[in-house]
């Protein structure tokens, strides 16, 4: 299988995109913008259709449209702060309706559009591979350099802003990077399933991981596993790669959730047994109530002079 150039390209491109798309997915999920990938893929399709209609390179046009859509959604999101999903719905309607109309005007090209809709390993040409590598490089640099501000923004934008983080410029850059990665992933999984590559590994990672760093690593591993097994199965079975990869990712997600559930149930059963043993032997320690530690009352009663610059190591717990 790997002696074919197109399969080498597909594995190379798929692996690289799976890494950045998974990390992107974790951030999108935590920012409650999981549908953004779906929306931008539709906008990108409109760009592809517009490019084909105007005689431009469809890949470049799709890439530019996804980035423009990402910028637009960030502006609209600020207008609908309480309903940020509204911005996604608005842009998605614009992208999809534009794509449908432009595809209708390109009747002779409907066949090539199917590779954009459902993905095709053969469709990964040199231009798209370069675009993927560029998007992956920009995405990797972005997520590594801004990992701390992105974590804080994902948790709470207002707190991040008061911490001196330039939330607006970083959010705008995040949207642009999202557009780039979505457009780059399109040839592999297709417009209709690009969000699977971004959202499914993140959905499993967020479920399994205890820490943020672990969530990113799990998402990347799951994304890579889904892409490689999906591409292999797609080649062997002759099925569309997009759908096959998405199904494998979905299977991994279900398997992960089932295993997690099983471990939780096993843990509960174990705890119940331990509790029974403790009650039998009457050795139960009083549970730590986790109350706020009290400061010694003589400190509070001390003269209330504002002495600046006390030591942090002072023990008052």
């Amino acid at each position, binding site marked *: 299988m790997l002696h074919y150039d197109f399969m080498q390209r597909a594995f190379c491109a798929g692996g690289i995109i799976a890494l950045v798309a998974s990390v992107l997915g974790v951030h999108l999920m935590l920012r409650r913008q999981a549908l953004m990938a779906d929306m931008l893929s539709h906008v990108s399709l409109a760009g592809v259709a517009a490019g084909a209609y105007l005689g431009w390179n469809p890949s470049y046009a799709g890439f530019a449209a996804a980035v423009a859509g990402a910028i637009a959604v960030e502006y609209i999101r600020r207008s609908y702060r309480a309903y940020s999903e509204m911005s996604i719905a608005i842009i998605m309607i614009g992208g999809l309706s534009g794509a449908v109309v432009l595809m209708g005007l390109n009747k002779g090209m409907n066949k090539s559009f199917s590779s954009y809709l459902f993905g095709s390993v053969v469709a990964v040409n040199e231009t798209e591979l370069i675009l993927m590598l560029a998007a992956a490089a920009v995405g990797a640099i972005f997520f590594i350099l801004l990992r701390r501000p992105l974590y804080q923004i994902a948790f*709470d934008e207002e707190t991040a802003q*008061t911490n*001196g983080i330039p939330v607006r410029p970083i959010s705008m850059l995040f949207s642009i990077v999202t557009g780039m990665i979505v457009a780059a992933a399109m040839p592999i999984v297709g417009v209709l399933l690009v969000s699977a590559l971004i959202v499914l590994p993140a959905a499993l990672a967020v479920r399994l991981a205890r820490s943020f760093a672990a969530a990113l690593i799990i998402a990347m591993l799951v994304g890579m596993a889904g892409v490689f097994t999906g591409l292999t199965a797609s080649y062997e079975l002759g099925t569309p790669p997009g759908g096959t990869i998405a199904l494998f990712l979905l299977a991994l997600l279900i398997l992960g959730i089932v295993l997690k559930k099983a471990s939780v149930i096993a843990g509960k059963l174990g705890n119940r047994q331990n509790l029974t043993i403790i009650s039998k032997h009457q050795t139960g320690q009083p549970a730590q109530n986790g109350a706020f530690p009290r400061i010694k009352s003589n400190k509070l009663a001390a003269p209330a002079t504002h002495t600046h610059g006390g030591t942090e190591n002072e023990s008052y717990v």
Partner: protein
Amino acid sequence: MQIASLENVVFGYGSVPSLNEASMAIHAGEFIAVTGPNGASKTTLLKLALGLLKPWSGEVYLAKLGASGKKLVIGYVPQQIAAFNSGFPSTVLEFVRSGAYESGAWLRRLRPQERARAEEALRQVGMWEQRGRKIGELSGGQKQRVCIARALAQQPDLLVMDEPTTGMDEASRKGFYELMHHHVQAHGRTVVMVTHGLEEVRPYLDRIIELERKGEGGWKCCTTTSCSGHFAPEALSL
């Protein structure tokens, strides 16, 4: 030293102002409670002071430098921040450490003193034993304390908290007030908090800023009351 102030600020979310000609000043080293009935724009007042909202008219001042001459560090605990997504993949310690970085230090690893700061903040709020737990698994009151620990780990010059004692039991609230009082007294921090439990916190306060309805149309303005014991009256300009 004045850290933040609002002067004749007008702001609203619709066409009618919810805050009308509100004025207040916050000085370094004060422990202030902001109080008022539900819907009195207490949260709005804090957000205006922090620059998170832009007023329709009036002046908002927020100092760029703290009393030490370095860039002013602000710790902010928003209302019900603890109601975050229960699936947020982060341990308690990882979350609190995210507050210990110096502003702009996005690339380097945490320094030992920054790690120690985060750990100390966790101990101060009584959550050290829970450091390895996922924050989404904590109770509401525990989440609130973790958020306070994160703000403390920043070693803020100005610590602003919106109803920080929500979900805490009485003993925890008392411990929390003592801790804030200690930070004001021993470390010179400025603490501003929105609260409904004024009677509990009053002994620790320097000043109370009260939002009152003035006339019709939901207009409010600030009145300030000095609390005896801790406060130097000459520091007040309003």
